């Protein structure tokens, strides 16, 4: 059963856990875009039509396998802080919360499955798992898609495949992506070269925090660009193969980094750890940068064994929306920085005691 309050106040989404190749890959996402055949896409749909979409998809979702594990949230019944938390946890898209009326989210209790209703397309089905987990994520998404389709008439064309509001999603409607942590490639200034290669193989690289802020936290998302003319398996295998190469390059870069920098690297990661465990004021950006250094230190066994899920949790806990929702009020930036530092200290000391 989905406990809505927990979604907004606990950072324990499935994707924050441990998964294959977790030292480099934080999470894996599969997203399928689907539309109903007889109603306008959300951008042009009237309120009544959006309501029809919502009612139909909601009904179909009641027949999902393990239906009891799902709950539905109508976005206009949530506070704007709560909608922000959903974005920070990557459970909805920015586009989805722009106009919350007649928009809804069907969410599984472990937050690994979210179905956005009336996003840019009528349905955006998303599976989000920890680590590099493309096959498992695709199988689950495929199965859930089959289940929904038994109760819905999808817009589909023999040549163009699943019809989507934007032609960049046609065909499979599939966007597969992995979130990578690449601090060593960035420090050694090899990241842009690696990304250039990926682009030649049809993959898109985005910084976790948008254009121009790519180095922040050294987190990057890699996903397939094309969606038509290739089967889902082909698209996924291509992403998997290239992600595997990036993982190897990052691991090699990490070892080289330690050989080249030695004590300077040791100092960098301990310094980051020291600030995170003792600072009284932390901005969101600073927290991300320090978390990146600490994560690198943990993966190179230079720091005490903080487990990776604990660090992943901090990716959510340090975000503005989450902090304010936990406190239960909007805060000034200074108040937020104070609370953020306290939450981080709390989390990291909890971790130390349990080890």
């Amino acid at each position, binding site marked *: 059963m989905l406990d809505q309050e927990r979604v907004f106040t606990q950072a324990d989404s499935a994707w924050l856990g441990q998964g294959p190749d977790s030292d480099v890959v934080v999470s894996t*996402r599969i997203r399928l875009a689907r539309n109903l055949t007889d109603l306008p896409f959300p951008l042009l749909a009237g309120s009544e039509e959006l309501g029809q979409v919502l009612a139909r998809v909601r009904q179909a979702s009641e027949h999902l396998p393990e239906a009891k594990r799902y709950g539905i949230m109508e976005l206009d019944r949530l506070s704007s802080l709560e909608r922000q938390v959903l974005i920070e946890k990557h459970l909805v898209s920015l586009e989805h919360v722009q106009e919350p009326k007649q928009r809804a989210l069907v969410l599984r209790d472990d937050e690994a499955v979210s179905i956005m209703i009336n996003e840019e397309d009528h349905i955006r089905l998303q599976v989000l798992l920890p680590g590099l987990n493309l096959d498992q994520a695709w199988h689950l998404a495929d199965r859930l898609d089959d289940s929904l389709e038994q109760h819905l008439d999808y817009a589909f064309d023999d040549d*163009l495949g699943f019809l989507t509001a934007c032609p960049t999603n046609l065909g499979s409607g599939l966007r597969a992506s992995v979130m990578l942590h690449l601090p060593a490639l960035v420090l050694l200034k090899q990241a842009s070269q690696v990304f250039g290669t990926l682009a030649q193989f049809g993959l898109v690289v985005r910084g976790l925090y948008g254009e121009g802020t790519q180095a922040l936290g050294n987190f990057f998302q890699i996903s397939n660009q094309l969606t038509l003319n290739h089967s889902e398996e082909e698209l996924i295998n291509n992403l998997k193969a290239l992600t595997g190469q990036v993982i190897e390059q990052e691991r090699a870069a990490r070892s080289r980094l330690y050989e080249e920098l030695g004590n300077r690297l040791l100092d960098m990661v301990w310094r980051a750890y020291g600030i995170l465990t003792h600072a009284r004021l932390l901005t969101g950006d600073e927290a991300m940068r320090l978390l990146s250094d600490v994560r690198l230190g943990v993966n190179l066994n230079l720091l005490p064994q903080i487990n990776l899920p604990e660090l992943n949790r901090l990716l959510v806990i340090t975000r503005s929306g989450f902090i304010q929702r936990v406190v239960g009020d909007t805060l000034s930036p200074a108040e937020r920085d104070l609370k953020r530092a306290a939450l981080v200290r709390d989390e990291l000391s909890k971790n130390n005691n349990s080890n």
Partner: protein
Amino acid sequence: MLCDNCKKNPATVYVRRTVNGVTTEAHLCEQCAHEQGEWNLVMGPSLAFPDFSLGNLFASLLDQLPGQTAFVAGGRAQRCPGCGLTYADFREQGRLGCARCYTVFRQPLDPLIRRLQGGVRHVGKVPRRHGGTARLRHDLEHLRQELNEAVAKEEFERAAKLRDEIKLLEERLRGGQ
């Protein structure tokens, strides 16, 4: 606290940005943060296609493709009966309005889709409810994969069965279903 920009809505997003060594701070509402393109900075990745100016991108792309102007020009402002969209609207916003748009505007859309996707042949999943050739093609694709595996594993009996099934499907496909 109210949004620094519109001074109307409550500020829920805090943006701090350093450009050329100068740090600026702002407290924005969801809407203004989005309009200023700051959401990604604070909130993390957009799960949707992240490019807010997709419309402009299409517009410039479309201008390079043949046969577009006739559909955009006022004289032939054909509307999709499903949603009321014109091709000029699409050119502006980069989004189609409904499933029927793809039939109504198929002719001018075709070169655009080829440019964006490299072709117009769907080989992925097909809804079970959907008849048509796509389902056959999809099944064929899978049978051929299975056949390759069977041959590789030297399972000749299974391979022979698969070959028969493939032949049957190919005939149905040629015979117009």
